[in-house]
Every structure is written in structure tokens, then in C-alpha cells.
């Protein structure tokens, strides 16, 4: 029996279970959410009044396209009636967009179009963690109970606030928590940010709270500033519509006070096919105030960000057709910089109907990673060139200087006809690309390393002879298939030296990738640990302690070999000794329990 037959026969599962699975999960509503729900209702009324009065102040004629491909529009607006940041070619106000979508929703077609398909190229140091430390005190998320406070590996207290992400900035502990009210047709999400003072590290004192409507898209710290991105929206096709589209406007609270979100803080990206937005907020955790915010309405598919930039990739897929991507770029103040239209970059038609696609030759470029360096936007991706029933993949790299001419592009075919980009590592002037492939005849899987070198606005793509194991997850635990953004197989040791997970449960490869034209594989380990617990596997959670030492989480199964029950985890130390015959050593002893231990303190 094959998978498709198995899929068919699952229809014979007990009907009671099927009915039960169609019920919405019940989740306990927290006290603050009840309060915020009431507040939200009041705010919708207030916002409606505001919107009704504001609506008549805005021009209803569609605005001209402010940003043709590759043309920068940074700087003061020449149109006093329309905020420069409203980037739409078609709509002059949010009200106009919502009025249109009320009757012309395009139906959601893509899984990624709810704004959740994004992943980030942010530097690891900016992103939150489940364990952070301040001086000698460790703070660790402890399920829904709150955040455990540890000193000398002993639990000494709890911050009684649930959290999904933790940050330490200066003398502040910042927690980010997503809560959901799933008891309605369209679940309502709220993200809550709490800021604590760490003057007494053992007893954090809560200073302030910020609450924003929507599910968490991304959050990161740049200095003292927390960037918080949430998404919300609805496919208003009649099957899931909430009648009041006013519900799909951003809402932000500082403590119990709602912060107004005027039209000036809204951007409309292109021609959205459904009501969906990402709300971005900058919170100064030292001054305890919101210092910037902007809501982006559009068919946002992917989100990329860095310390002082944000890129949003839009793509529309309706029941009849789909478009090629647009990449909208924004600065650290969340203001619009410019747009890259992939159709124009490649000289292709913008829209392709589903019905004609299988019938003709098509070329479909898809951005997979975005970065910004010295004001130049750099992108890498892959194209699918379909000719009848056959197709092949191609790498591409794009460089875009908003102050320069059109974006420049280069393409490259790899020895493998079909591949998927599994991982992209950005460095100052290049990207290291892992192109994973599966060949059926003869059967072979692997990853070819390639490089996108950027000389300011001139990209150069280089293939290499290096073939690595294709790593898509942890055997017997999880697999992502194409794991782009899900796992990071490379661990940078600096100076172009990289460890890379390989197919062994405790295996690493060592690469010198300092020269893109002559990358070297220095060592491939076939299991590096002398006393690996039976069934033990390295996790992708790791911390670089110095240029020769990395702490990596190790997961060991329970007594019956079960990874799902009674599994344990600990930190092991990986030491790299370049001049030794065996340059990679894993030291598992002594085992440090994960709980209450920040690996940075293990040196």
C-alpha cells in the first residue's frame, strides 16, 4: 500500500473521532485577555468613530504608483494628502481598501498567505531564546507556569508570567507571550510584552506591559529596542468572514491605555486580495515607550529582518491566478525604502492563471532569503523552469540599491537539475547556499554548497564541488523535508570556518569556506562522541562559546528507547582543534542538565 491509498482509507476512521476533531479546541481565557477583549470592543467602537470621521478627510481617487520597480522613494513625500509610506498603486486609504475587499475578497489560496510562512535571516544574537542570563542568574521558560529563575543551577524563584521568548537588554528582562482565544470561529491572538527590571537579578520587578492584537510573526532586539511583528487577518470569502472588518485593524495597548493607530501608520502593499496585515512596533525597553509603529496590509508571504531593516515579500494567489513576488523594503524606522518586482527583474509576465500554467513553458523565480548590507538589498532564490511535464531548478541572486539603477540579477545552473534551497547563511559580502537534492536514478540525496558573492550591486554565483549530507531534521524525531528557516545546519566559528551537522546522530563536518572559489572540507566525522548514550542525538540548539568551542544540546531517549516519553537532554561541548588528526571532539562528561543552565556559563 502506498501513501495515497493510505490517505484514502483513513476515511474509515471512527466517525465519533472525526466529529470530535471538528470541534474547536477549548482554551482557558486568562483574566487579562477578558479585560483586553472588553477593551477591544470599546476600542472598535472608538476606532469606528475615528474611521468614519477620518474617511472624509482622505482623497478617494487611487494614488499614482509611487514606486515603480527599483526606484527609491525614500525622503519627504511630495504628496501632502497621501503619506509617502502608503505604497499602494491602487488605494489611497485603508478604508478604501477594506471597502473594496468587503465585496471582492480573492479567497486565500496559499498556506503561506496568512503571514505565517515567513522566516528570518536575523543574526542569532538578536533573536529571543528560551534561556537567557544576566550576571550569574539564568532565566528559563518553564512551560506555561512562567519563567524559572536559577542561580548555581538551583531554582530560586519564578517570574509568574508565561513566555514564549526571552530577551535580556541592558538591565532589563523582556518576555514575549502569545495568547489565543480559540473559542470563536476566527481565533483571536494577542501578544503580550512584559518588561522587568533586573537591579536585583533574583527578584525581577515588572515595570511595564505592552499588548498587541495578532499572532506573533517575529520579534527581535536591536540595542534597547524590541521589534514586535504580529499578523492578523481573514479570508472574507463568506465561509470564514467576520462581518465587521474593523476588527482587522491593529490594536496596541501600553498598560491599560490604547495607543492610537492612525492612517499615517499604515502602508498598503500592492493590491491585497484579502484582509491581512502585519503590524510592526518598536518598543524602547529602557524608556518604556513605543517609539515607532506601522501596519502593512498585503498578501504577505515571507518576512525577513535585520537589526535596522525589514523586508516583506508579497505574492497574490487567487482561485484563478497567481502573481510573481514583490519584495518591499523598509528601514529601521519602519519606513518604506523601495520595491523589487521579480516579474520585472526577470522580464516575465506578472500574473499567471492556474489553467494555462501546465500548458506552456513557464519560468517561476522565488526569493528564498533577503539581507541588507550598506544600504544594498541582496536576495537569493531559486527558479523553476517548467517545459511541459519536465522542469529544472536554477539559482539566482539579485542586488538592489534603492539609490541606483535597476536591480541586477545573475542566474546559475547547478550540476543537479532539480534542487531546493535548504539553508542560506549571510556573511558581509556573500551568501553560503545549501542546495539540497534528491536523485532517483541512481537514488542519492545530498546538499551542494554554492556561493552568492556580492560586489556592491554586482552579484556573482559560484557552484562548488562540495557535497554535504542533506540534513532535514533529527532521525526518529522530526523532519522538515525542505528545512529552509527551520533548522540551521551550519555553526559559524568565524573567519570562514564552519561546523556542519551531518547525517550521523553525533556527527559534524568541518569546513573552511573562507574562499568562495576554493572552499575546503577539512574533516567528516562518523560519530564523534566516545560515550554517546544509546540512541542519543544532537539537537540543532547550540551556542558558540568561542572560536574553538560550541555547546550543543544532546537528546537521549527514555529507558524504553522512546523519544516521546521520558527523554532527557543535556549540553555537550564540541571542541575544534585544527592541527590535530581528529579535529572535532565531543565531550559529554560531565553532563550539564539543560534546565537552569546557560551554556555560556559552561566554559
Amino acid at each position, binding site marked *: *500500500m*502506498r*501513501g*495515497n*491509498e*493510505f*490517505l*484514502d*482509507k*483513513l*476515511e*474509515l*476512521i*471512527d*466517525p*465519533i*473521532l*472525526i*466529529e*470530535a*476533531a*471538528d470541534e*474547536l*479546541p477549548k*482554551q482557558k481565557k486568562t483574566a487579562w485577555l477578558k479585560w483586553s477583549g472588553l477593551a477591544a470592543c470599546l476600542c472598535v467602537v472608538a476606532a469606528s468613530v475615528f474611521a468614519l470621521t477620518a474617511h472624509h478627510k482622505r482623497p478617494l481617487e487611487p494614488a499614482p504608483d509611487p514606486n515603480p520597480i527599483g526606484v527609491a522613494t525614500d525622503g519627504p513625500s511630495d504628496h501632502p494628502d497621501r503619506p509617502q509610506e502608503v505604497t499602494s498603486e491602487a488605494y489611497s486609504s485603508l478604508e478604501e481598501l477594506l471597502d473594496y475587499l468587503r465585496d471582492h475578497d480573492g*479567497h*486565500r*489560496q*496559499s*498556506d*503561506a498567505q*496568512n503571514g*505565517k*510562512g515567513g522566516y528570518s535571516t536575523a543574526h542569532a544574537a538578536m533573536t529571543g531564546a528560551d534561556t537567557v542570563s544576566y550576571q550569574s542568574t539564568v532565566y528559563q521558560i518553564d512551560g506555561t507556569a512562567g519563567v524559572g529563575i536559577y542561580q548555581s543551577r538551583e531554582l530560586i524563584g519564578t517570574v509568574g508570567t508565561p513566555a514564549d521568548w526571552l530577551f535580556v537588554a541592558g538591565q532589563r528582562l523582556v518576555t514575549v507571550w*502569545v*495568547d*489565543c482565544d*480559540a473559542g470563536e470561529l476566527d*481565533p483571536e*491572538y494577542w501578544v503580550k510584552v512584559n518588561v522587568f527590571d533586573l537591579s536585583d537579578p533574583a527578584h525581577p520587578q515588572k515595570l511595564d506591559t505592552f499588548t498587541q492584537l495578532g*499572532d506573533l510573526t517575529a520579534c527581535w532586539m536591536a540595542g534597547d529596542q524590541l521589534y514586535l511583528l504580529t499578523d492578523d487577518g481573514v479570508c472574507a*470569502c463568506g*465561509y*470564514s468572514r467576520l462581518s465587521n472588518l474593523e476588527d482587522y485593524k491593529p490594536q496596541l495597548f501600553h498598560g491599560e491605555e490604547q495607543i492610537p493607530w492612525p492612517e499615517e501608520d499604515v502602508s498598503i502593499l500592492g493590491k491585497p486580495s484579502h484582509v491581512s496585515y502585519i503590524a510592526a512596533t518598536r518598543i524602547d525597553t529602557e524608556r518604556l515607550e513605543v517609539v515607532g509603529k506601522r501596519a502593512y496590509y498585503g498578501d504577505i508571504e515571507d518576512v525577513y529582518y535585520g537589526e535596522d531593516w525589514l523586508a516583506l515579500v508579497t505574492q497574490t*494567489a487567487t*482561485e484563478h491566478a497567481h502573481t510573481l513576488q514583490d519584495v518591499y523594503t523598509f528601514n529601521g524606522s519602519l519606513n518604506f525604502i523601495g520595491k523589487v518586482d521579480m516579474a520585472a527583474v526577470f522580464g516575465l509576465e506578472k500574473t499567471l492563471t*492556474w489553467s494555462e*500554467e*501546465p500548458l506552456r513553458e513557464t519560468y517561476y523565480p522565488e526569493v528564498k532569503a533577503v539581507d541588507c548590507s550598506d544600504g544594498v538589498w541582496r536576495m537569493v532564490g531559486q527558479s523553476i523552469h517548467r517545459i511541459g511535464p519536465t522542469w529544472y531548478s536554477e539559482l539566482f541572486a539579485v542586488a538592489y540599491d534603492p539609490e541606483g539603477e535597476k536591480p541586477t540579477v545573475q542566474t546559475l545552473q547547478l550540476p543537479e537539475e532539480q534542487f531546493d534551497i535548504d539553508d542560506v547563511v549571510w556573511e558581509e559580502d556573500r551568501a553560503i547556499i545549501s542546495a539540497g537534492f534528491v536523485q532517483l536514478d541512481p537514488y542519492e540525496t545530498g546538499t551542494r554548497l554554492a556561493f552568492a558573492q556580492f560586489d556592491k550591486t554586482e552579484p556573482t554565483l559560484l557552484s562548488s564541488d562540495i557535497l554535504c549530507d542533506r540534513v532535514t*531534521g533529527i532521525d*526518529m*524525531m*522530526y*523532519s*522538515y523535508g525542505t528545512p529552509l528557516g*527551520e533548522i540551521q545546519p551550519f555553526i559559524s566559528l568565524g573567519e570562514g570556518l564552519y561546523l556542519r551537522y551531518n547525517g550521523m546522530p553525533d556527527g559534524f563536518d568541518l569546513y573552511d569556506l573562507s574562499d568562495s572559489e576554493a572552499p575546503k572540507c577539512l574533516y567528516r566525522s562518523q560519530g564523534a562522541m566516545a560515550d554517546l548514550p544509546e540512541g542519543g542525538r544532537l539537537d540543532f540548539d547550540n551556542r558558540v562559546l568561542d572560536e574553538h568551542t560550541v555547546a550543543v544540546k544532546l537528546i537521549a531517549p527514555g529507558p524504553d528507547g522512546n*523519544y*516521546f516519553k521520558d527523554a532527557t537532554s543535556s549540553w555537550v561541548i564540541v571542541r575544534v582543534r585544527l592541527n590535530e588528526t581528529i579535529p572535532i571532539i565531543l565531550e559529554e562528561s560531565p553532563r550539564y542538565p539543560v534546565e537552569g543552565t546557560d551554556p555560556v556559563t559552561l566554559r
Partner: protein
Amino acid sequence: MEDGQIVELYLDRNESAIGHTAEKYGRRLRSLALGMTQDVQTAEECENDTYMEAWRSIPPHEPRGYLYAFLARITRHVALNRCRERDTLKRGGFVRELSTELEQCIPAPDDLECRLDAMALGEVVSSFLISLDREKRDMFLRRYWYLDSVSDIARRFGCSEGKVKTTLFRVRGRLRAYLEQEGYTV
């Protein structure tokens, strides 16, 4: 109208049975088909095909206590076939993706001979699912019965997509082990 009364109308060959079915369950069935096919017109066609198939199937079936599940099973079957027929880049690929995931549950996927009949397979998988906790069971069914996307499941359960993927991967592994342990070869 109660499910039992609607079923009686079918058994009496009273055509108003279809109207009552549509009134009570039409929206849910259409929504189910829309989730699978992602196409409004196709979803409506699936809904209509469901009524026709129900008319043909009752009798001999008499789903008094599980009419919605009975109808939904038909809708799922019709919608899956539509997805395969249409086989557009997105939905055809999606069904193939689900099939590939489910192959991990099959102890001997290359064995073309089906040694376990469909009814028995339904019972075995149901027994396995009952042994799981509610959240894992529902995640599995949302993915492989209702064909929800991972992101939709994450939203439904208020958790991350990573958690959904990890849970599904583990449940698939456990189902495979369960089938092997019970001595089934599918």
C-alpha cells in the same frame, strides 16, 4: 430537524431529505471541501456530489447517529479525487505531500499487495488514535482527514508550526510502530 428524521426521509426516498441535509450541514460540508480544494466552485460541486452520493447510499446505510460524519466522509472522498484530477501546482502537490508523509506510517510501503482490508485498517487506526491524548489525535485528524495545512492547525491549537510538525512526525512514527506491534502489514 434531527439526524434520525433526515435519515428516515432518505429511507422513504423522499427528495426533501436533500434539502434538509443542505440546510443543516451544507455550510460545513462546503467549508470542508473548500479547505481541501481551495476553490469555491469545486467546493460547491463537491457539496452537490455529496448529496447525490448520500441519496445513492442511504439505504443500505442508515447513519442515524452519525449523519454528519457519514456525509463528511463522502465529501472528503470526492474532494480528494477532485484535487488529484485537477493536479494543479498547489493542491495536487499538497495531496502528494500528505501521501508522502503518510508513507512513513506504513511498515512495508513497497508491498503493493494490500493484506489488510480497508475496514480493518479503519478500526486499527481508530484504536491507535483513541490511545493518544486529545490534542495529538485531533492534530493528526486535522492534517490527514480534514487535510488542513500546518499553519491552519497551528492557529487552531494556538501553538507554533514547529510544534505541529514535531507532533505529527512523532504520531506518524508511533502509528507505524503500533501497526508493526499489532502484527499488521498494510
